[in-house]
C-alpha cells in the first residue's frame, strides 16, 4: 500500500532523531529503521511477517550525515514500496553510505555551519546584541538545515535507486566548492575581532603590532600544519589562566 502524506510527514519528522541510538555496531542503522517505521507500517499493513523482515533488513549497519540520512530513509522506503529485491536493497544501502557521509560532512559541517557561526559572531562584534546574534545564527543555520533535510527526503522518495547519481552532481557539492573561500575569510575576520576584544578587555598593555604579526604567523603555520597547530593552540589555551593566576599570586 502506498504511504499517505501523513506517513511521509511522520517519517520525515523522525529523521531529526535518526542518530538517537547511534552505536558502534550498527551506527545509525536502528535510527534508519525507526524513521522508516511509519512508511513500513503502511506499505506492509496487515502483513506482520513482511513488516518484520523489512524492519530487520533496514536495521543493519548504516552511516551517513544525519541530515542526508533523510534521503536514505525515503529512498529505502520507496524501494520497499516498489518491492525491489532484498539483495538489491542491501547493495543500495552499502553504496549509499559513503556519498551520504562525504557530501553532507563537507557541505554542512565543513561549510554551512562555520559560515553561519562566523556571520553571527561578526554581527555581535559589529554591535548586534548577544541574544540577537545567537538567534541570527540559529535562524540562518536552520533555514539551511531544514532545507537540506527536506530536499534530501523528497529527492530520496522521488528518485529511489537513482539517488546515488543525483548526489554526485548535487547542488550541495557545487555550493561546498563555492563557499569555502568566504568561510576562510570570515574566520580570519572573526579571529582578529575576537583578539581585539580580549586584549581591550584585559586591562594590560600589549604591543598590538607585534601581537598581530605573531598571530598572523601562528595562524598561517597552523593552516599549513593543522594537527600540530591545534596542539599548540590547546597548550596556549591551558597556559593562559595559569600565567594569569601565577602573576596575581606573585605580585
Amino acid at each position, binding site marked *: 500500500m502506498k504511504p499517505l502524506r501523513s506517513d511521509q510527514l511522520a517519517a520525515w519528522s523522525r529523521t531529526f532523531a535518526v542518530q538517537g541510538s547511534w552505536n558502534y555496531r550498527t551506527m545509525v542503522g536502528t535510527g534508519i529503521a525507526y524513521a522508516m517505521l511509519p512508511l513500513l507500517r503502511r506499505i506492509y499493513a496487515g502483513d506482520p511477517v513482511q513488516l518484520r523482515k523489512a524492519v530487520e533488513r533496514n536495521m543493519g549497519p548504516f552511516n551517513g550525515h544525519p541530515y542526508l540520512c533523510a534521503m536514505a530513509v525515503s529512498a529505502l522506503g520507496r524501494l520497499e514500496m516498489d518491492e525491489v529485491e532484498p539483495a538489491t536493497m542491501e547493495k543500495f544501502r552499502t553504496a549509499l553510505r559513503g556519498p551520504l557521509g562525504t557530501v553532507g560532512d563537507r557541505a554542512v559541517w*565543513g561549510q554551512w555551519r562555520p559560515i553561519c557561526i562566523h556571520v553571527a559572531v561578526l554581527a555581535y562584534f559589529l554591535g548586534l546584541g*548577544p541574544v540577537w546574534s545567537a538567534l541570527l545564527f540559529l535562524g540562518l*543555520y536552520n533555514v539551511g538545515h531544514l532545507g537540506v533535510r527536506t530536499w534530501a527526503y523528497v529527492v530520496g522518495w522521488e528518485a529511489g535507486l537513482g539517488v546515488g547519481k543525483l548526489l554526485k552532481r548535487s547542488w550541495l557539492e557545487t555550493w561546498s566548492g563555492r563557499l569555502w573561500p568566504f568561510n576562510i575569510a570570515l574566520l580570519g*575576520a572573526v579571529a582578529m575581532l575576537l583578539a581585539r576584544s*580580549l586584549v581591550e578587555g584585559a586591562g594590560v598593555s600589549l604591543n598590538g603590532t607585534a601581537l598581530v604579526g605573531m598571530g598572523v604567523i601562528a595562524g598561517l603555520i597552523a593552516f599549513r600544519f593543522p594537527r600540530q597547530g591545534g596542539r599548540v593552540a590547546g597548550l596556549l589555551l591551558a597556559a593562559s589562566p595559569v600565567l594569569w593566576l601565577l602573576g596575581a599570586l606573585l605580585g
Partner: protein
Amino acid sequence: MTWSELSLGPGTWVLSVLAGAVLGMDSVSWPQAMISRPIISATVGGLLMGNPAAGMLVGVVLELYSMRHPPFGAARYPDTGPAGLVAGASFAATGGQAVGALLVAIVIGWALGWLGSVTIYVRRRLNETIVSPAEELAADPALLEQRHRVAIWLDALRGGVLVAAFLVPSVLVVTLAVGSGPSELGRFAIAALVLGLAASAGAAARSSAFGVRGWPLLLVGAGVALLLILGGLA
C-alpha cells in the same frame, strides 16, 4: 565578590540542569538544530545568570577552539552543549568582567567539552545493549521505537547530569579567579590566549579549505577586520 553576590540560586540551578539536558541531546540525538554550539549554549548559560554578553564572549572563544574539530566520520570532538552552558554561566555568575575569571571559565569549558565526549562514547557503547537483540526488536516494532526513545532520553540525562555535577564547582573555581588582577605575567597570559586563538583559527580554516590553497584569504579577512577596527566600526 562574596558568595551572596553570586546569581546562582537553586531555581537557576534547576533551570540550568534542564537546559543542559536539552543541549546535551542536540549535538547527536535530537534535533541537531545546533543549539549545542558554544555561541548558543554559553549565551544561554549567561542568560540564565542575567548576563548573556558574558556568556557570548566565552562562547565565541570556545567556538573558535572547537571549530577545528568538525564531526567528520568517526572523529572525536568536544561536546560543547553542557560544557558551553557551564562555562558561560560560571563567567556570568561571577560578574562577567574579570579577565582571570574569563580565562578560567574558558579552560573549564574546554576540559568539560572533552569530558562530555567521553560520556558520549560510553553512551554509544550502552546503546549497543539498548538496541539488542535485533531480531527481538524487528519482531516488535513498538519495542524498537521504545528503545530508540530510551536512548535519546539517556542522552538528555547525560547532558543534565554533566551540568548538575559541574555547574556549582565550576562557578566556585571561577569565583576564586575574580579577584586576581592584571600583573606583568598577565600580559603573557593574554598574548598566549590570542596566539592560541590564531593557531586554532588557522587549523580550523584548513578543515574547511579544499587543500592548502586559500591561506591568503585568512589574511584578507583579518585585514578587513583590522580596517573595521581602525575605522571605528567594530
